[in-house]
């Protein structure tokens, strides 16, 4: 297996937590995602395993949100009330707040979890170029907001 499962566990968990804001549920869904991944070799063989993992995790999170009747993603960022947030990141936090939830999700996946653009393209069913351009625009937006702030 090309990717380290234990390392990906943390990434998937962080992604689920970002979407659900519930550590227990996020961990349940992370484990369910890995069980499905390990069971389903026929799908994994077809495409990129990382995109497969994120697709399963995202679908399970959507199911969970539907069952909770949550119509939109939560607007706050995790760790918002942490006392130890460094001064330098305050402006970044504010800039991130001004992004919409999908843009924040892309930032998490690309720059925090390090998901390659090719896997993101598969996950969002878009071309690699479209994803690349979208990320560039988000970064520009972030820089602009930080400069204004």
């Amino acid at each position, binding site marked *: *297996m090309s990717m380290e*499962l*234990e390392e990906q*566990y*943390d990434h998937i*968990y*962080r992604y689920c*937590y*970002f979407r659900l804001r519930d*550590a227990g549920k*996020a*961990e349940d869904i*992370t*484990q369910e995602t*890995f*069980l499905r991944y*390990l*069971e*389903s*070799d*026929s*799908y*994994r063989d*077809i495409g990129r395993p990382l995109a497969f993992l994120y697709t399963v995790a995202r679908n399970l999170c959507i199911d969970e949100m539907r069952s909770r009747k949550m119509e939109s993603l939560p607007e706050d*960022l*995790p*760790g918002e009330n*942490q006392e130890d*947030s*460094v001064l*330098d*990141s305050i402006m*970044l*936090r504010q800039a*991130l707040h001004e992004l919409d939830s999908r843009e924040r999700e892309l*930032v*998490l996946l690309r*720059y*925090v979890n390090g998901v390659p653009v090719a896997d993101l393209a598969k996950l969002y069913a878009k071309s690699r170029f479209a994803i690349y351009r979208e990320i560039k625009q988000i*970064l520009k937006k972030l820089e602009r907001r930080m400069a204004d702030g």
Partner: protein
Amino acid sequence: MDKVRRKQLEKLYEAPKPVGKRKFFRNIDLRPAGMWHHLAIQFSYISRWSWAAAFGMLGVMVYLSRFNKQGMLSAVLSMMPLLVLAGISECVRSSTYGMEELEQSSRFSLKSILLARMVIVGIEDIVLAVFFAWIVGDEYGRFTGQGYFGRTMIYLFVPYLLAASGSLWIVRNFNAKENIYVCTGFILLVSGLAFCSTTNFWWIYEENYLSAWVGVAMLLGGLTFYEGRKMLYGNGGLIWS
């Protein structure tokens, strides 16, 4: 993006520590579901009627080997195409009951399910053919000398492969709900022809024609492989999962 900014983002997106990770990885089997595991799963879905048909034919052969040795070759040649009928009904079960779309979205792709069923049924048929050839070859070998086992195998495989390639072609070209009936008709025709050949055209089983039998068996083998491959990969609707 520079490293400092990445670190800041990691901090902002930090989640509470997962508590069950260690236990989870300790308890699960990290080996992915492999080919044998997949075959074992599909094995349990082969219908009981299919196994019953195979055991029924085995019973007939054992009976004939004890009480009616003269009729063994005719019986075994006409039974070989019937094995195809049991196998083909397993392979077209999804389409017969209109379940293809559901199976496309299940754990294993329909292509891998079909392939697994073909492998299981194929192995079962080969084992039976070897057993039949052993019984018949043993009986006839007493009169014709050594090497009758291989000859019988070729005689058995010609009607079997003719029925298999024809049935696979029918499955591809006829309506999903009706193809099993067309297959049944075709297989019974092959079975009947095989039976008649042992009574009316017995001379074709003489040693002079052995090379022709080998050629026909190879040709039909290639045709069956081609049709099987077409069914798995070339059937438009089956490849989109």
